[in-house]
């Protein structure tokens, strides 16, 4: 499925609820769905605020596909400034935090099983979040 929202803060929750509805109907575990919702909201708010500079004329596109093994979400903006994702395992800064900047990217990297940034010359930047449906018996594809 594909959902397109305007770049207005608040609309990310519509994308979150749409993807949560899909994940629930495909039988994903409730705590996994909470991870998906959090990571997706971070990806959407980044796309709205940083990628599209909160310009309501620009769109954020969320594409969600599901197969036997994975739930894959792509969040695409119309910006030209792809984020730099931290590597797994995420190293969290020591408290007290000096800044919350970059925390969304850290959450995405920590919660999704795989996360990649795909710059797209035509449409902008896409962040791809992959969640394994059966984390214990999935063989990681390193290709």
């Amino acid at each position, binding site marked *: 499925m594909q*959902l397109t929202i305007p770049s207005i803060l608040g609309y990310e929750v519509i994308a979150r609820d749409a993807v949560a509805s899909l994940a629930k109907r495909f039988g994903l575990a409730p705590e996994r769905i909470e991870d998906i919702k959090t990571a997706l909201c971070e990806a959407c708010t980044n796309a709205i605020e940083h990628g599209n500079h909160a310009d*309501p004329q620009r769109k954020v596109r969320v594409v969600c596909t599901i197969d036997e093994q994975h739930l894959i979400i792509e969040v695409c903006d119309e910006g030209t400034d792809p984020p730099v994702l931290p590597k797994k395992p995420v190293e969290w800064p020591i408290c007290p935090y000096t800044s919350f900047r970059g925390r969304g990217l850290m959450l995405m990297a920590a919660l999704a099983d795989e996360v990649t940034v795909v710059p797209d010359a035509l449409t902008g930047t896409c962040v791809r979040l992959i969640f394994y449906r059966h984390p214990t018996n999935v063989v990681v594809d390193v290709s």
Partner: protein
Amino acid sequence: MNDREGAIEQVIELRLPSRLGYERIAMDTAAALARRMGFPAERIDALRTAIGEAVTNAIEHGNQADAAMKVVVVLMVRPDELIISVADQGRQALDPARTHIQPRITDAFQRADKGGWGIWLMRELMDEVEFTLAPGGGNQVRMVVHLERPST
């Protein structure tokens, strides 16, 4: 959002494969939006039912349940109303005569599938319902629900 310049309308577009079950995604997405717009619970229930019927019709009839064909749901947010349009790719055209049908409960007892109530339900539940052709040539239904704010 600046209503002096007419930019008072926001659009959300949802594209779904024509597979039964995906109407639930449209229902949940529209309900999430309507809740945040401030619609009361019973209007949201009505909206869920109407969208469920519209998307099911698009999947089963318009697109003949061919999963490769898309159903496009457009949710248009205005300050005082929500406009929902549901379009299919028109493998089967909707007979205009069927858009004003008045089903009878006595006939329903004779039918095995209990179908035939979708369009009637949409008209009962929504403030405006209009059947047109989709830009791509498929069937399209446009439904409007007005947001009545409590008077102060």
